[in-house]
């Protein structure tokens, strides 16, 4: 397939209480093989997916938060997190885990994949897509 489309994965749900966050990540990983232009959006309770220090030992469920750090290897490098959603939840950028990628166009320099954006910027990102998948 030669056509390249802009795919946006919208994550608005918290992890573990329901399976949507995990199954969204499964789609992203499979989708990476299709060489499309992929962006991930985290807003509302979706910002909780990226908090650091997640330890699921006490609930007997698999901790999938490390998988976000592997996204760079799949060339998924655009993760946008909404500032207002963080603030409403008492969170700041430093409460999120670091997700980085190595930029092959810049001598493999390590760069952050997570970008904090305003609600207005998030709306612009959403309006610039071909396919929007919601989880």
């Amino acid at each position, binding site marked *: 397939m030669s056509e390249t489309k802009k795919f946006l994965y919208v994550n608005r749900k918290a992890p*573990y*209480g*329901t*399976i949507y966050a995990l199954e969204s990540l499964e789609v992203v990983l499979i989708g990476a093989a299709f060489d499309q232009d992929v962006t991930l959006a985290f807003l509302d309770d979706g910002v909780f997916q990226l908090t650091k220090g997640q330890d699921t030992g006490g*609930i*007997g*469920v*698999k901790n999938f938060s490390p998988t976000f750090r592997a996204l760079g290897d799949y060339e998924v490098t655009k993760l946008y997190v909404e500032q207002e959603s963080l603030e409403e939840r008492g969170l700041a950028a430093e409460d999120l885990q670091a997700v980085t990628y190595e930029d092959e166009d810049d001598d493999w320099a390590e760069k952050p994949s997570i970008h904090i954006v305003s609600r207005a910027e998030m709306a612009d990102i959403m309006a610039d897509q071909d396919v929007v998948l919601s989880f």
Partner: protein
Amino acid sequence: MKFGVVVSEGPYTHQAADTAYHFVKAALDKGHEVPRVFFYHDGVNVSTRLSVPPQDERHIQKNWTELAKKKGLDLVVCIAAAQRRGLLDANEAQRQGKDADNIAEGFRISGLGQLIEMGIQTDRMVMFGD
């Protein structure tokens, strides 16, 4: 003390079946009785024996079946909710003219009256759902 427990959501999709499992284990460990666990709404989906979760994930149905075997739990699956959602035991499958069944060992299909009865006969009821 006697605890009745209701599980209202399906496995993996919601955490309810996991939380209920940990709660029942803790209650039994503390010397309480859990005479019955009632699966209602999508909770009936916990009882399928055809689930094949990834190797590195917990097996929710097997956890319940094993706990039931070890502790003598009565795991009741609501028949009305199960029929809608395609959960059948061998008897039901035959009665409905279906060519397969899917209920796991340790679960039994019965009516909603078992939920009310559980409410009457236990000291506390705890519902896990969405």
